């Protein structure tokens, strides 16, 4: 397997707006991709935005190796993401990819994926990848409300989809950690993969620890480089301060100090 970081101008082939907060960029590469694994991310240069000096990191939402496309699912936060949300077909985007480690393969076939907010970004790619290993995960996703749900059918292709909404307009009412799945005596999974807001990941990690289930989370951090050079993005682990962009973004919660 060839692991190699690239810098390239990718072409925006589609910009899909899901709602007033989320959009998806489909990016076309000239060259075929080398290995890209679920959990990895990219660093995007936001040209033409006066207040955006550094690149912006985004998880790889999914990859189509055949057509040399990768997709980013982006939540509008500030100037950089607002600027990206306005890109139209044909625009060039300078991207460094792929970066970081990836989710590790589970040892059992009983696997739970948990996501919320823009933390869902890498989950579809992971689900697809698990399918290729003949694993059908349970996928639990939290949305704020029914009208903000998206890509529901996509997820259903790869596993059993469970949903929570804050207001109960779809699936179970409440946060993902309130889901009835977690109320059971035994949490019957060999592995939990989780990404989303830190408080959510912490709650899920605590539940996993309680049930002695292995749990991996994908962390965010403030990044200057994204490829291990600056040491700005550290998180405390059992081996000291590690770089989220190199030793992560995926960490086994056993190794983290933030529980």
């Amino acid at each position, binding site marked *: 397997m060839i692991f*190699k*970081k*690239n*810098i390239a101008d990718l072409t925006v082939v589609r910009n899909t707006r899901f709602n007033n907060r989320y959009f998806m960029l489909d990016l076309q590469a000239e060259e075929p991709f080398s290995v890209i694994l679920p959990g990895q991310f990219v660093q995007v*240069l936001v040209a033409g935005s006066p*207040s*955006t*000096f*550094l*690149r912006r990191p985004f998880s790889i939402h999914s990859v189509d190796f055949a057509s040399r496309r990768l997709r980013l699912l982006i939540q509008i936060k500030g100037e950089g993401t607002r600027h990206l949300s306005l890109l139209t077909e044909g625009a060039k985007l300078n991207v*460094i990819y792929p970066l970081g480690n990836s989710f590790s393969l589970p040892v059992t076939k009983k696997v739970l994926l948990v996501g919320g907010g823009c933390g869902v970004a890498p989950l579809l790619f992971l689900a697809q990848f698990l399918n290729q290993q003949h694993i059908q995960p349970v996928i639990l996703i939290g949305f704020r409300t029914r009208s903000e749900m998206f890509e529901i059918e996509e997820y259903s292709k790869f596993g059993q989809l469970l949903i929570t909404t804050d207001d109960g307009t779809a699936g179970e009412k409440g946060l993902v950690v309130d889901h009835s799945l977690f109320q059971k005596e035994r949490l019957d999974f060999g592995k939990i993969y989780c990404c989303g807001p830190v408080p959510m990941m912490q709650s899920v990690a605590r539940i996993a620890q309680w049930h002695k289930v292995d749990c991996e989370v994908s962390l965010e*951090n*403030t*990044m*200057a*480089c*994204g*490829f*291990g*050079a*600056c*040491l*700005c*993005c*550290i*998180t*405390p682990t059992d081996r*000291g*301060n590690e770089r989220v962009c*190199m030793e992560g973004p995926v960490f086994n919660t056993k190794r983290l100090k933030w529980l």
Partner: protein
Amino acid sequence: MNDLSVNIAGMTFKNPVTTASGTFGYGEEFLDFLDPGQLGGIFVKAVTGKNREGNNYPRMAETTGGMLNSVGLQNKGVDIFCRDIYPKIKTFDTHIIVNVSGSTVEEYVEVSERINELEKIPAIELNISCPNVKLGGMAFGTMPDMAKEVTIAVRKVYKKILMVKLSPNVTHITEIAKAVVDGGADVITLINTLLGMAIDAERRRPVLSTITGGLSGPAIKPVALRMVWQVHKAVPVPVIGLGGIMNATDAIEFILAGASAVQIGTANFIDPRVGLKIIDGLGQYLERHQISTIKELIGALKTE
């Protein structure tokens, strides 16, 4: 035509484009992007006496035309550097210069002594200007006496080329420069980061865990240029200039102001190949202006 090589304290650099300490890791992080052998030199991340975990997260804040960092000299210490890292990087076909940091004069001396033994390291850069550590660091770089003292102490044990990197957070940069030259510095590099601060207005908290941090990037270029120019005029040793260099034009500006070589820092984060682009750009500049060697441009600012 187009001779980009420069001489600094007896060393020949194939071109004047090097990378700044703390922004280029140990070179290894860049191997997918470039061959370090194409660069004039590499200044690797600060090495201290013992392992240091650095400061807490968050360590970075973006600012207009720049960034603040408070990494705080995270590194594995000089033992691990010599044992594990040096063997991997010593094969790079370029000058590898180690940035030496410490909290006490003794620590600077200890580390320098160890690095002195490493055959493929032709020079060290004493970092007396790190704003992100409680003890030592910048304190040495803001007082002429202390700057001189640490330089003298290291000079005694370090036999190769001694570079000293200055802090810009001072009233009279030339006084510090003169002090370290008196102390035995062969080369001066400047500038390190400006001490700054970022605040998250919504949360009413500092952005960095350390409250203040070091400002780098093009925002500081005017200050850096000014100091390189002042120091170049004030001391008889070569100057290596840095601070906000993003492209070849910026590099030329530093060279005109008196820098014999430049370091690229924050720009590496935005474009890990920027060093190569700058080397190309320097060549083009020479060609456009019909200048045969870049040495002619060093300090060639016309101020009549």
